[in-house]
């Protein structure tokens, strides 16, 4: 077994064979998982931004004693932030595709 492996190590054509195998692998590879999972990512971004905006507003409400006002404003800022993040994600994906 060991002798066989040593023989392989000195085989000059092995390098070529590995290269052709790797190029074949690259051709067969589907899209990277991160590109495909953007749909799921968008949903969680939407939820988490609204939650975070609301939470920041709620904490500021406690500090200033203006109960629901900053919470509501913060929630809408969260919605705006989520739309901006999703826009950035979409733009990044488009840029990656055209590179």
């Amino acid at each position: 077994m060991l002798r066989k492996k040593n023989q392989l190590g000195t085989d000059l054509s092995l390098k070529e064979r590995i290269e052709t195998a790797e190029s074949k692998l690259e051709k067969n590879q589907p899209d990277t998982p991160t590109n495909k999972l953007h749909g799921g990512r968008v949903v969680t971004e939407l939820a988490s931004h609204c939650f975070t905006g609301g939470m920041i507003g709620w904490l500021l409400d406690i500090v200033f004693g203006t109960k629901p006002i900053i919470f509501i404003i913060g929630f809408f800022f969260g919605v705006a932030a989520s739309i901006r993040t999703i826009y950035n994600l979409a733009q990044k994906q488009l840029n990656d595709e055209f590179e």
Partner: protein
Amino acid sequence: MADPLHQFEIKPLIPLNLGGIDVSFTNASLWMVISFAVMVLFLLIGVRKTSLIPGKMQSMAELSYEFIGGLIKENIGNEGRKYFPIIFSIFIFVLGCNLMGLLPYSFTVTSHIIVTFAIAFLFFIGITLIGLFKHGFKFFGLFLPDGVPLFVAPLMIIIEIVSYFSRPVSLAIRLTANMLAGHIILKVLAGFVISLGFVFGLVPLALLIVLTGFEFFVAFMQAYIFAILACVYLNDVLHLH
């Protein structure tokens, strides 16, 4: 039918009370310790007898190392090399918890949002401090994107701050939601198998087997996504714009 949410119940195993705070050793703590121990053992056995031609365990350990190494090189570049330990630890711990949660009668630690949020938030504090120490006052330029007209700048700053703070939340929600949903579906289908009896129960049983395989995929995938997003966020604070 059995309660599909029963599996997420936290039961104290060793009740402890320190200064009015409940710090009991619960089943969640037990499974955290178990998954930590299993992953440490896996890596230790992998590097115990190192040889030029790796054995099965060694190549598995090396694969996980190279996987995260490649992830960091791809997303951060050479500068990210010194942050390898933290990304690798997070990946291995999350992966361990996800996989251990798939054992029968086990407890899925990562299905509790407080656990994932604690990991994500500690990482978030860490990267914020890294950014502050590296860039000083310039770090706050992260909150003002390039080419924003002056009259919308105050609005943009608030939006950017909200989206910066929502990073750990989205990390935590993504991992928790995936683990929670998967485990609830598995339990609901298992309940169908029991209630439909021997003949008709075979259909949900087949689905259950397929979904269990899928859950293994999800366990790997979510650990991978947690690690890759950690890399992306770290890259953002290391290279401002």
